[in-house]
């Protein structure tokens, strides 16, 4: 399965959930989806399309809290990013950690650095902030003028 087919499959299966598909190169692509559809799309990408989870990147921008879930299709060198934008007022999204363990730590880290809430996380304890900074302080958040 090549990049084109993978993107087409996701787009066809989740017509109403996909907001945008951006193919940067043959091996790099970003699929922007609705936050509420993350569980279904991620399950399809991980289990059916057999992509390996690499890591997730959170970022605080003027649009809100953006999360990129980076997946890899190793036999074609593809990095496919599932992109969601969460509103600043209510940065909540379902945890993927009940589906696979690899997101367990990074979701906790994103919570401690940005204050994003991962719903139904199986192990929502502190990962890096214990003794380092106070509860409710999110050091990677930005201030916009």
């Amino acid at each position, binding site marked *: 399965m090549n990049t084109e087919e993978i993107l087409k499959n996701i787009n066809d299966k989740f017509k109403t959930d996909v907001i945008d598909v951006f193919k*940067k190169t043959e*091996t*790099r692509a970003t699929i922007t989806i609705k936050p509420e559809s993350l569980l279904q799309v991620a399950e399809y990408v991980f289990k059916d399309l057999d992509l*390996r*989870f*690499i*890591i997730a*990147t959170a*970022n605080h921008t003027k649009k809100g809290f953006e999360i*990129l879930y*980076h997946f*890899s299709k*190793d*036999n074609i*060198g593809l*990095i496919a*990013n599932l992109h969601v934008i969460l509103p600043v007022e209510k940065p909540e999204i379902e945890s993927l950690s009940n589906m*696979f*363990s*690899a997101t*367990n*730590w*990074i979701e906790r880290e994103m919570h401690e650095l940005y204050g994003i809430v991962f719903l139904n996380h199986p192990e929502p304890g*502190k*990962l*890096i*902030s*214990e*003794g*380092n900074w106070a509860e409710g302080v999110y*050091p*990677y958040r930005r201030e916009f003028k």
Partner: protein
Amino acid sequence: MVKKTLIPIGPYHPLQEEPELFKLYCEGEIVKDIKWETGYNHRGIEKLSEKKTYDQSFFLVERICGICSTSHPFAFANAVEEIGNIEITNRAKYIRSIIGELERIHSHLLWVGLAGHFLGYNTVFMWAWKYREPILDLFEMISGNRNSYAMFKVGGMRRDIENSKIPLIQEILDKFKKKNNLLVGAVMDDPVLHARTKGVGVLTKQDIIDYAAVGPTARASGIDVDVRRDDPYAAYPLVNWKVITAEAGDVFAKAEVRLLEMYESISIIEQCLEGLKKEKEGDINVKVKDIPEGWGTGRAEAPRGEVFHYVLSDGSNSPARHKIRAPSYTNIATFKKSCVGQTISDATISLAAVDPCYCCTERMAVAYDRNTGEKIMNGKDLIALSAKKTENIKNQF
């Protein structure tokens, strides 16, 4: 009711040069659960990188890890060059791969030594670290540094490997190969090591997929993944080599993968040295004006597995967001699978089997007089100096 005992390893423990805490919950000798605590040394490197220029960030990311200090600049360069659509010269590609593979050899040797030490087999520890020395000397010769080589920059390299040095590098590699054969043979054929590592700390294919483990940890469980081949960069597509895998998923399989990978690394270096001879000396940089707006993802296969860098550029001379994922981040979490059900004595080697990032750079310097070739200061001199100082202090009281 069986009494559960908590055995802590860390946060500061002689086995670990880095602060982290493993809590082993044991019933008798058997580990029933394991918890891990970190954050003792959170340095905020991702945030720091946003305050640095692209050139400065190379020095920053090089300091994420002392052992695989080239893997991060490697992945960062790949990410930034992807944003700018920059194609580096073949000579720079060869040098990058040579540095990357030398690093793999010295890191794997370091691991083999530590693994021997954890098992109480210190002969392996001493051999491996002794044979690692010439590799560090090579680094010193090429870059001026034994660690943190400061070789990478956007669009190429900071230093060339002069063609006149190639025969000497080859000579050191030839000597190393003989010693490495001895070490690999000793480890692979040793019945004690077989007994202590086979069937210990097993990770199944499903565990690897579930935890997204990478590198030798994944390859030892039959997952054929290596970004040098899968997402080609630097000189890896220009040379012949193969990805080493094993099926058992135990500590022995992880050792086997690492030991055999060193042969591939030597072969890659030799082919790259041949490649260097065909390229023009000094042709190691392309001109980079500025980094445009956009994003790039760079990957490099570190000795421990895939290093991943995501860089977001807003068109300025600093990254707007820089995400870094080191391989240990996903590999360490597999402890939950590899250690539970093991005895305490096997848990230590299972913990060490994924090669959690250790850094040891302590060494003694021996200076030679450039003109006479004589040692200015050797080990005995230093000990004599130390004894003299103690004597002086004693005399003061």
